[in-house]
């Protein structure tokens, strides 16, 4: 069995000198350019800078978390089709420790982002005083530390097990990974929920919605699948993932489609119940998003994050063709950015729909760092989990 998988196509390291090995440097380059711009333009607009940073940070963080969800769910469900792209997702998820550093600007810019962090505001606001046991600085920092610890531990543990299996070809490890993956989804779901509450929902500290955490990780799953699709196709184009067939793309496409619908379902549930109930303390959140320029963004989100990809991804041929699938994936990533932007910006006073250089710079910086981390991990291990006993099954996979 192990001989078979070892000689299976696609089990290879990135060859030295291949252009993919330059990915970390490209990432660092982009991050440097972005950081320089942030320093130049952000010095006078600190508030704008932190907001842009939070958007970029959450955008890439949710991609990495989406990949971690994908890895755990796929493994827990004993799926085999996706093993061929699992390492790509593992690598993206293993960048999560990096986000602890990328969080520092958020922590630093806390006062320009979070209204509840101002003691004078809390002093004059009965609700914020009531919420103080949760919304206070030490606890906020402690929770953030906990989230990063949990995420990093899960992602690194999984990648390490998977890497060990590359070497020792331990078939029993697959069953063990499957068992633990299911259990690890529990802390992952709880931490992502509260991270969404802390970093996004508390931007509007009076507002609350029980589904908010699910909304954020639904978007993260869509973008995780989109990222995996793009990265896998790019690696195949670079000649590094020849094992990726249109059957695998078909399944990735189906998941993109399904989770686009799931995102829409969650988004609609939240909007609809608040719209119908019509309680002012809840509707205020949508009110700002349905006024002025934000209304257009909201409509764009409904159309672009749901209606267009829904019809576009429906035909089978679109999902099986690498080019069209990547078009859909890139589009959905762009929409995920709009989604995060729409979650953050309207809650910050005085920031209308004014995308600017700062948003680009923050994206470059966080994205560059993410790309550098991803690229660095990519060249360090085979591009598919070579030791997984069911890799050959995944390679031979056919849609029924």
């Amino acid at each position, binding site marked *: *069995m192990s001989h078979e998988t070892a000689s299976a196509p696609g089990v290879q390291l990135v060859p030295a000198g291949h252009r993919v090995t330059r990915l970390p440097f490209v990432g660092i380059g982009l991050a440097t350019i972005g950081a320089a711009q942030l320093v130049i333009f952000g010095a006078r607009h600190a508030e704008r800078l932190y907001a842009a940073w939070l958007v970029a940070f959450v955008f890439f963080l949710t991609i990495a978390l989406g990949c971690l969800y994908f890895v755990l769910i796929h493994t827990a*469900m*004993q*799926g085999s089709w996706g093993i061929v792209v699992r390492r790509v997702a593992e690598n993206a998820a293993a960048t999560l420790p990096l986000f602890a550093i990328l969080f520092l600007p958020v922590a630093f810019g806390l006062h320009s982002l979070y209204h509840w962090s101002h003691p004078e505001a809390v002093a004059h606001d*009965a*609700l914020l005083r*009531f*919420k103080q046991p*949760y919304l206070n600085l030490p606890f906020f920092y402690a929770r953030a530390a906990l989230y990063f610890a949990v995420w990093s531990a899960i992602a690194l543990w999984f990648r390490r097990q998977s890497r060990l299996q590359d070497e020792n070809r331990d*078939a*029993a490890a*697959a*069953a063990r990974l*499957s068992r633990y993956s*299911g259990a690890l989804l*529990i802390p992952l*779901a*709880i931490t992502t*929920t509260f991270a969404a*509450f802390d970093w996004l929902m508390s931007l509007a500290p*009076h507002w*609350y*919605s*029980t*589904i*908010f*955490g*699910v909304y954020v990780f639904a978007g993260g799953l869509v973008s995780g699948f989109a990222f995996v699709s793009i990265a896998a196709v790019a690696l195949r184009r670079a000649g590094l993932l020849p094992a990726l067939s249109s059957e695998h793309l078909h399944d990735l496409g*189906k998941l993109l489609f399904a989770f686009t*619908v799931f995102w829409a*379902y*969650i988004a*609609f*549930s*939240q*909007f*609809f*119940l*608040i*719209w*119908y*109930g*019509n*309680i002012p*303390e809840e509707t205020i959140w949508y009110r700002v998003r349905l006024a002025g320029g934000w209304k257009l963004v909201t409509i764009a989100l409904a159309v672009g994050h749901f209606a267009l990809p829904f019809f576009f991804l*429906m035909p089978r041929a679109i999902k099986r063709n690498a080019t069209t699938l990547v078009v859909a994936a890139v589009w959905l990533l762009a929409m995920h950015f709009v989604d995060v932007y729409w979650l953050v910006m309207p809650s910050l006073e005085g920031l209308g729909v004014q995308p600017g250089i700062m948003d680009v710079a923050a994206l470059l910086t966080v994205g560059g760092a993410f790309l550098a981390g991803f690229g660095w991990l990519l060249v360090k291990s085979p591009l598919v989990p070579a030791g997984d*006993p*069911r890799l050959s099954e995944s390679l031979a996979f056919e849609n*029924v």
Partner: protein
Amino acid sequence: MQPKPDNLDPVAGPKTLILGGHDFHSITEVVSGVLERPAPLGWWAVFGTALLALGGLGIGVPWLVWEGIGVWGLNVPVGWAWDITNFVFWVGIGHAGTLISAILLLFRQKWRTSINRAAEAMTLFAVACALTYPGIHVGRIWVAYWMAPLPNQMGVWPNFRSPLLWDVFAVSIYGTVSLLFWYVGLVPDLATERDRAKTKLKQWIYGALALGWRGSQRHWQHYEVAYLILAGLSTPLVLSVHSIVSMDFAVSQLPGWHTTIFPPYFVAGAIFSGFAMVITLMVICRKAFGLEQIITMRHFDYMAKIILVTGWMVGYAYSLEFFVAWYSGNPYELFVFINRATGEYAWAYWTMVSCNVLVPQLFWFKKVRQNLAALFVISIFVNIGMWFERFVIIVTSLHRDFLPSSWDYFRPTMWDVACLVGGFGLFFTLFCLFVRFVPMVAAAEVKTVLPQADPHHGSAAPPAQAPALPPVPAGARSGLIAEFASPAVLYRACESVRDAGYKHWDAHTPFPVHGLERAMGLQRSKLPWIVFVLAMGGALAGFLLQTWVHSFEYPTVISGKPLFAWPAYIPVTFELAVLGGALGAVLGMFALNRLPRHHHPVFGSRGFERASDDRFFISIEALDERFDPTATPELLRRCGAARLEWLTA
């Protein structure tokens, strides 16, 4: 028996889902045997008890209609109690059937084949139990037609912006689509029963219902597409149904009801309770009808894990509701939740938490998941817990009104109990009839997961002794039919016939053989287009109807919304899209297959009844231009036919 290494999945264990070395014929025997043997004594006992329980509805409903809903323990402010609790409970039970038949199909979880038929039947009966309540719960069944999208005699239209009307659409369409899905799955198995029938009456009834199904590969091709599309439609449908049910509560402003997590939380809870009911039923059925080798401990293991997962989802929602009730800073919200946990209904709340969150944790242990008694007991706990969940949500939120002067405590009367018991009676009566008269295991589907169903399994070599050519009949002949012993031989034969350039020919198999459409050189099915057009048509019609009613025909301002309150039209629009698509899939499939067609030359062949059991056939029509009375039989003989026969009809 130690499984061979190539038959061992490193994660899931042995790949064999069906134990005991079954072949195609023995599967048919086991499944059909249940219907052909006299009912076991236990069946009569359960059936009798269920009928007795059904009497609860038989007496309770007429009394309710005669006397009014005052016979229930309702009061002010608890104007809604066991009626809606039962309704939501039964709708929820139904969800596991759809989950098994649709979502697990999409996830390619092949183990579903052993239990999907019974689980789908359970869905139908649970929906039937649920659907009694919209009709009776106001005690005036003579105005039940107000639920239909029709104006009443005063020109008043139903309110399409009310979640109660969405319920009617959602649950009745859910019932309809589930019935279609179930029936489509049943057709090949009904054909098996038709072909095995010993009495004329049975043959006639099963035959009429089987629509002349002859296992044609051209039919299987559309059939499989239709089945997949129905799964694709049922998946969002099942999500929408319990989401809409949750909106009965969540669109209101009542603390404890109005919270945004409700739709996915209800869906998770529905799947949770539904799987518990599947376990309850399957533990009994597999024992009673000797299905141990088809419904194996592996199946229970998977179902227990799904209960564990959905149990956590429910627990997640319970905790989140509590946290956000505090975090909202809204004193009413917080009061409701503290009251749930510590007030007069604390006993119900903690019953719910124990049954739904604590007890299922036992499923972490493989020993528990492999123990039938433990599975049975835990599944009962979950059923109880989920009934209490609905009770807790509904009654605790109502019994503490905003006005303390109207606070009250709900106590059920004997008529509440009669309706609850009667619901179970209806459910089990229908289920008992189902297991007696309908194949309770999807035999055709189970056959596809046997290793020998793979056309690349085993030898494709023709039998050692080639069959004798039958004499060419003197009179009219419509074609030639050849029998093959295994999918592997058939597959190769199909390739040969295709390559020989025949056009008017077909293969007949007891189950869809994977990849055979390629071996036969068939085009992809056009069915998806039919479905797409009808689904869009359904959506458009639904949206326009609601817009027309509320903006033009009967404009009324409701809950301060504009006349054109389009978000409120989404639920019904969506449901009608699914209905259109599902009807398109089923009717389109039958139309493309030219079914029903009860008369066909192949039925004239001796031994063709085994085309729905364990034999594989190729029929070539005489009108094919390549057809030749000597070359054609010779071709089939070379391909490994075990038997050849002229079709004369």
